[in-house]
Structure formats: structure tokens, C-alpha cells
């Protein structure tokens, strides 16, 4: 899909499905998970238009630092320029389309295409092309030929997002109510800063990306999919996702959703219970939080971290961050890392250890989720029943004091919100 800076997102010429007939309030049609044409449509209307999470500012902390990342199928370089700002560039030489950057990460002021030696500043400008007399010398083609820039780049709490559409809602509008969940995460750092510096696991998954996005705030599955590990470790997590749980599932609007576990943690009233420990076992952290937040620290330490899915690809699960990278209708990659909190060394190592045990290809939680995704993908390719049912908790939903739709801990309120936003993007002009 070309992005030429003209503001025109390419639209498929072929007949597009009538998405209103595929996505209803309480059910969705199987074809949205399997049809390659719908996947192509999603690239144009979702991945190359809305705000997509690309990386964290802490991954490119110093000027010149860069990482390779993706937006949909686009290979993107996220680089910090000497101006201190984060830039997003498509990894494609303006000459003949070669990749200009092969390394996954590094530090460089410029990128030199290995094919014919064209060189670009890490903010995208063409600064050199060998044997330049063939182009009439220096100062001829530079203005016309640069790396393509992702037209909009913005960050919130260090989470960097890019949008391939030059216009549209700004990041604050896109995040909406989900922004305060990222605030809640940052607030758990005594210095108010999240860092994603522990490296990423990448888990190849033979399933449609939306099965993952829906599952992230599905409070119905944990007792069944994760029963094996809960029973072995005596984990109390399962009970948070039961019929008796006071936790709620909340649709945050714009396709975002959360499992709000705070009602359960408030009932218990124990600092650090959300992390499976007690304050006296992480004394330096508790002291730093009390110094930073004063009396408010108790509530922060009791309520813990968010469990929020930010449309379309960022999921914060308490102490882990996940990113969904779509590859095709039937394949995606899950990226996962441990949250690291500035000023909390005592917690950071434990968060890495817990995350390594839980997530990634061998994770004692995520390998089982992924088994479900892959079996699910085979199931939705079958002929009948044609629909996936989304009605759970529909009759007991209500609107909360913030004007947001909430359901029980195990209800499909978040998924319904996801599909409502998906529909608005897919059927829009």
C-alpha cells in the first residue's frame, strides 16, 4: 500500500463487502477472520489510517538510536533524531525500493542503502547518492526523493504511535478514555515513567489478529484456558474472572476495552496484592511510592496496574505489554515484554521473571492462549454455524458514572465495543 504523502489512502477498487451485514450488535460473521480481501481492506482502513502503536520512547532513548518496527505490513524505522524527536520512516529506498536498514536496532545518524549507496539522514532526507553527475550533481534530486515519513507521530506516557493518514483524529482523541489507563501504569513508577527496555519476545501465531484483540479483555476464558497453571501455582487470578467477581469489563470507546479489576483489589484492600505480593516484601519500592505520592500511595498500591486493550494493537496486561502485528488473514505475530518502572529496580527484575514465565512461545499462560487462537482459526474456516456469538452479558450491561458501558467480569462487553469501532472504520467513506 503506497503512502505518498498526498493524503490519499488507497482504496480497493473491487466491490467491498457490506460490513453492516457481517457485523451485528451481538454476532460477527466468520468471514471477517478468514477472507484475504477483508484483510486487505483492514490494512487500508484500519492499519494505514488509525493510530497504531509502534514502540516506546525508552527503546530509542538517545539521539541516533533506532529500532525496526511495523505498521500493518509496512517495515518502519523508529529513530530519534539529533533534534531529540522520534521520527517514523518507511524502510524503503527512494531509488529502487530496497530496504535501507537491515539491523533490528542500533545507533546511526544516517542509513545507507546497500544496493547503490544512497544515504539518508535518520530524519529521512536524502543526503548522498554516489557518482552524482549521473543526476546532474548535488542539489538536484534531494528535495524530490527522501524516505517516506509516517505523516503523524505522537506519544503518550512514552508510548509512541504513528498514523499513516495525514489527517484525522489526533492521538488524544483516539486514546480517549484509554489514556487514563496508561496514566495508571505510569503512576506505578515512583518517577512516573514506564520503560520498555527488557527486549521483546516474538511469537508467530497462525490466527487472525482480531481473535487476539478480542481475547485480551475476555474475562470468560481464564479459568478454562489457564486452569492448568492456576491450579499448579495456587494463583488467585482465576477467581478475579468468575461469576462472583466484583471486577467489571468496560468498553472505553473507540474500540478500546478493559478488565477493571480494581473493585476486587479494593475489597481486599492490600497494597501489592495485584502483583501477588505484599508491600513488606518490596519495601524499597513501597517507600519510594509513599515518598512520591504521599497519602495517595496506598490507593495506588492497592489498585495496581491496568488491563487494557488499546485498538488496534496495544495491550497492557498489568505487568506485561503486548503488541499484535498482523501478517495476513490467517497469521500474526505477538510481541511481548515486561513493564519496567523507572525508580523501581526491586520490582523490575521480578516483573521480568514473572513475564518470562508467563508470556511468549513457551509461556505458561500465553502458549495456551495461542493454542486456542490457532484452533479457533481452524474453526472459523468451517461452514457452519456461520456466526460467532457475542451476546454474553448483553442483558446485564449498564452505563457507568463516566458514561461508559460496563458488564460483568466475564461478559463480552469489550468485544462488542471493539466491533462497533471496527465497523465504523470499515464502512466509513
Amino acid at each position, binding site marked *: 500500500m503506497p503512502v505518498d504523502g498526498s493524503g490519499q489512502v488507497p482504496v480497493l477498487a473491487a466491490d467491498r463487502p457490506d460490513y453492516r451485514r457481517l457485523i451485528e450488535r451481538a454476532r460477527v460473521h466468520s468471514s471477517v477472520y478468514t477472507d484475504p480481501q477483508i484483510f486487505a481492506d483492514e490494512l487500508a482502513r484500519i492499519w494505514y489510517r488509525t493510530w497504531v502503536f509502534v514502540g516506546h520512547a525508552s527503546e530509542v532513548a538517545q539521539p541516533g538510536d533506532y529500532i525496526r518496527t511495523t505498521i500493518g505490513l509496512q517495515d518502519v524505522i523508529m529513530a530519534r533524531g539529533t533534534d531529540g524527536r522520534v521520527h517514523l520512516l518507511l524502510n524503503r529506498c527512494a531509488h529502487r525500493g530496497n530496504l535501507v536498514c537491515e539491523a533490528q536496532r542500533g545507533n546511526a545518524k544516517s542509513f545507507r542503502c546497500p544496493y547503490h549507496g544512497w544515504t539518508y539522514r535518520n530524519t529521512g532526507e536524502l543526503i548522498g547518492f554516489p557518482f552524482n553527475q549521473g543526476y546532474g550533481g548535488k542539489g538536484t534530486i534531494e528535495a524530490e526523493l527522501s524516505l517516506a515519513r509516517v505523516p503523524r507521530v505522537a506519544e503518550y506516557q512514552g508510548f509512541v504511535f504513528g498514523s499513516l493518514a495525514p489527517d484525522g483524529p489526533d492521538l488524544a482523541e483516539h486514546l480517549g478514555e484509554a489514556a487514563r489507563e496508561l496514566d495508571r501504569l505510569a503512576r506505578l513508577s515512583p518517577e512516573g515513567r514506564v520503560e520498555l527496555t*527488557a527486549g*521483546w519476545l516474538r511469537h*508467530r501465531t497462525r490466527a487472525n489478529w482480531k481473535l487476539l484483540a478480542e481475547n485480551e479483555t475476555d474475562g470468560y476464558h481464564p479459568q478454562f484456558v489457564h486452569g492448568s497453571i492456576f491450579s*499448579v501455582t495456587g494463583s488467585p487470578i482465576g477467581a478475579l474472572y468468575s461469576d462472583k467477581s466484583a471486577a467489571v469489563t468496560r468498553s472505553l470507546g473507540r474500540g478500546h476495552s478493559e478488565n477493571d479489576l480494581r473493585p476486587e483489589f479494593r475489597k481486599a484492600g492490600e497494597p501489592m496484592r495485584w502483583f501477588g505480593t505484599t508491600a513488606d516484601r518490596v519495601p524499597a519500592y513501597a517507600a519510594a511510592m509513599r515518598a512520591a505520592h504521599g497519602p495517595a500511595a496506598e490507593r495506588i498500591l492497592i489498585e495496581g496496574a491496568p488491563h487494557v486493550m488499546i485498538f488496534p494493537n496495544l495491550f497492557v496486561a498489568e505487568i506485561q505489554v503486548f503488541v499484535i502485528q498482523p501478517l495476513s488473514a490467517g497469521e500474526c505475530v505477538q510481541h511481548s515484554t515486561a513493564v519496567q518502572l523507572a525508580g523501581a529496580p526491586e520490582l523490575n527484575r521480578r516483573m521480568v*521473571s514473572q*513475564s518470562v514465565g508467563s508470556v511468549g512461545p*513457551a509461556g505458561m499462560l500465553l502458549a495456551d492462549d495461542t493454542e486456542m487462537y490457532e484452533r479457533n482459526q481452524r474453526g472459523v474456516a468451517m461452514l457452519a454455524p456461520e456466526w460467532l456469538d457475542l451476546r454474553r452479558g448483553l442483558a446485564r450491561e449498564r452505563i457507568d458514572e463516566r458514561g461508559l458501558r460496563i458488564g460483568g467480569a466475564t461478559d463480552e462487553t469489550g468485544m462488542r465495543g471493539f466491533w462497533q469501532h471496527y465497523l465504523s472504520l470499515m464502512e466509513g467513506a
Partner: protein
Amino acid sequence: MSASAQETHDPPAAGREQALRQVEQFIYREARLADEHDYDAWEALWTDDALYWVPAGGDLTVPAERMSVIYDNRSRISTRLAQLRTGRRHAQDPPSQLRRVISNIEITGEDHGDIIAAANFIAAESRERGVELWAGRVIYRLRPAGNELRMAGKQVLLVNRDQPLPTLAFLI
């Protein structure tokens, strides 16, 4: 010079040969137990200070601060095996059909009485979704205990550890 002449007339070489044989036999047995999901016998190979490590990516410097595919101490190994034994570890239900070939076995060093050995492997994993081919290098830390060896460390360096990996829920 024949091998038998060496064994007869060069005791240090004979000792090295015997040590290599013992290491090889241990490695083959460990591989077979993992292939056949004999969790109890596999668990019994480990020492209490065990470290079972499958790194992700290229940075091997500060494993406790970086994401790994597996970074299990003895207690975590025990949890992992307990989960497998429930029969409800969906990613291993049914268990993968496995066979691995191990070669290029060398004793590469010694550390505080532990034997450090290295080998290459290729493993075929069959599940309903298809066959995955796994390959890499394994570095073992083996501790002599009486007439036997026990395993204090197993580091598995997958050749594709810097790429997205499929689910890896069996004992690699």
C-alpha cells in the same frame, strides 16, 4: 596409531575418551527423556541450582533483566513440569510427537568441577497443525555425582532465536 593403542598406552587420553563417552550417554538420555515426555525422569536429572535457559535474540549479557523464551530455575522447572502433568496444558494436549538428533558433542571446558559440554541438535516436532523443525546449539553444565552426571545447566541457543518463533511448549 590405533585407538586401542592410545587407550592402552596413554591413560590421560583414555580418561578423556571415557569422560566424553559418559557425557554423550548423558546427553542422549536427556534428549530421549525429553522426546518421550518422561517428565519425572527428566526432572530427576537436574541439580538444585539448575538453570534451564532458552534465550531470545542476541543479547546474552544480563539474562535476569532481559526477556528470554525460557529462564527457569529449579523451582520454575518444577512448576513447568507440574503444569504439563495436569494434562490440561493445552499447548501440549496432546503432547507433541518429537525426535531430536544430537551431534558435534564436545567437552569444551570445566568450571568449579562441572563439565561444560556443547552439542548441536535438530528436532522435528509434529502436531496437528504440522511439523516444526527446530535447530540450535546446546551448552550443558554437567556435575559429576558419584558414578553419574547430573545437569546443573542447559542453555539452548536456537538458530532462529532472533526471529518470531512458533509455540514452544515441549521440553527443548
